[in-house]
């Protein structure tokens, strides 16, 4: 409409401009039509479940209230109950140990492997592909394999340790080791992801820099410290942040191996939420939703950091 109004004012170019304006408007509608499935999808399958989740956390939902649709409004009570629960600090520290421990070790091993595979050698492509296997396996498969390997009486890990004179360790059934055990399994799962991304990052570093450093007589460690590591910093940050976001969400591996036990020893926020809602005979959705929403807030803060980093990089 506005394009038509301006027409009399400019005599020479108006038609072209009006034409272009119409075209642009038409294009905008076309774009919207192509986006429509996604917009509907996001609204129905993301926004609405999220809204339901907030709704759950401020009411007292029991399975019966679900069907009848008349839950009692409780405001922020569930949040207060959760934060003051004895389990809260436990879950917080477990989440921190599991998440930070996982991403730190995954990153270091992933980076070492990426540097190792950086210079091609015979079979390097094949071996690199094999490293993807743990990441592609269904989690239930990896988790149950690790469970059996870490089995107290018949596991291969204890059998191997016995050869060195170390007695039986109850990896999954002792509160001292269960968090360590699930973290180790999770590190194993995350190495391929770190390797692939860091390897791709290394490919973008110009080989001429290494040649120049070689002429200056820099040894391998100096080349790593002064070229690889600094230039890889943006990719490293993104890898770690994505790792953080993914690891915060992890339920499957812990639930399958220990169910968060024994005695909450490996219960993270995600496990806590899952157990309240689905892990017992009596689903308790409202506190579960409250824990879940706390988790979203943590992930969201990490996500904002990710977006900022990416923007910063785009703008140079």
């Amino acid at each position, binding site marked *: 409409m506005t394009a038509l109004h301006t027409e009399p004012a400019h005599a020479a170019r108006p038609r072209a401009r009006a034409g272009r304006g119409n075209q642009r408007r038409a294009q905008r509608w076309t774009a919207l039509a192509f986006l429509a*499935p996604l917009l509907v999808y996001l609204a129905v399958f993301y926004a609405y479940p999220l809204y*339901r989740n907030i709704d*759950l956390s401020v009411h007292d939902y029991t399975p019966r209230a679900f069907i009848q649709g008349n839950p009692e409004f409780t405001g922020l009570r569930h949040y207060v109950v959760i934060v003051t629960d004895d389990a809260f600090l436990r879950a917080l520290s477990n989440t921190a140990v599991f998440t930070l421990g996982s991403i730190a070790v995954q990153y270091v091993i992933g980076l070492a492997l990426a540097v190792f595979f950086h*210079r091609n050698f015979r079979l*390097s492509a094949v071996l690199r592909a094999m490293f*993807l296997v743990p990441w592609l396996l269904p989690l239930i498969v990896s988790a149950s394999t690790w469970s059996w390997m870490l089995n107290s009486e*018949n596991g291969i890990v204890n059998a191997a340790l016995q050869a060195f004179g170390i007695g039986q360790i109850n990896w999954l059934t002792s509160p001292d080791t269960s968090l360590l055990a699930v973290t180790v399994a999770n590190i194993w799962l995350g190495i391929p992801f770190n390797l692939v991304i860091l390897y791709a990052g290394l490919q973008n570093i110009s080989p001429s820099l290494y040649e120049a450093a070689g002429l200056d007589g820099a040894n391998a460690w100096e080349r790593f410290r002064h070229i690889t590591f600094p230039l890889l910093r943006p990719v490293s940050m993104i890898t770690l942040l994505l790792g953080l976001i993914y690891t915060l969400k992890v339920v499957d591996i812990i639930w399958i191996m220990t169910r968060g036990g024994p005695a909450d020893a490996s219960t993270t926020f995600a496990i806590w939420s899952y157990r309240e809602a689905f892990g017992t005979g009596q689903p308790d959705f409202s506190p579960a939703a409250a824990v879940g929403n706390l988790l979203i807030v943590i992930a969201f803060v990490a996500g904002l950091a990710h977006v900022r980093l990416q923007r910063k990089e785009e703008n140079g």
Partner: protein
Amino acid sequence: MKAQKTVWKTAVGVVLTGVMLFPVYWMFNVSLTKTGDMRADPPHWFPWDPTFEGYTAALGQQLPALATSLFIGLGTVALTLVVSLPAGFALAKLRPRGARTIDFLLLVAQMIPAVVMAMGFYAIYIRLGLLNTVAGLIVADSTLAVPFGVLLFRAFMAGIPAEVMAAAQIDGASTWRTFRSIVLPLSRNSVITVSLFAFLWAWSDFIFASTLNRSSEVIPVTLGIFRYIGNNTTQWNSIMATAVIASLPAAFLLILAQRYIAAGVTAGAVKD
């Protein structure tokens, strides 16, 4: 000198790969172990005397679950493509309003923990009667892949030269026509990548299956294995045999489509 150096590297690489893949070997080894040898001390390191009793039991019990998983995986691929292909095209080529907002929403969407999504879906499905249905699981599983699909398609289609599209438009092709007969065929590789991941994620899904499909007779294979572990802790050869079978799609894809997989892993994180 140089050749010697790479031989040494290959040797180290083989050892590292061996260590990394040991759990996978162990799964395979246990799946071939006789029930009687399962608790042998020390455990048998090699399946000298293999048995297929595990596989027979696994196939006998898990065949319907494998079929269900296959069906859910294919449904998820279809739904993911239908939603994300046009959206990726619009974001890459049609310069819609609010493209940045959509980008941001897609990033946020990927951060939402699946357990939170599961509760939301549960609350909705219980009203709509979609609990314990394959359709319900397909929709839930597709949320794992749609944001990834849109972002990958957008990145890929942005690389299609503007001239190719302009030429089609001069020939009088509508936008839909251009999308269908020019952009889609050119995007074949990215379609393969997204389909692979959508399928793998749906096939591997445990959280949605264990929450939205709890009391169903029709269960995917992940839940089949989980129940198997819960019900009998002695038949580890059958459990591991099921695990080996459930890993086949991954192995298959790794051999046939390795380059698409590497493309997918890096797409989200690294920009050239």
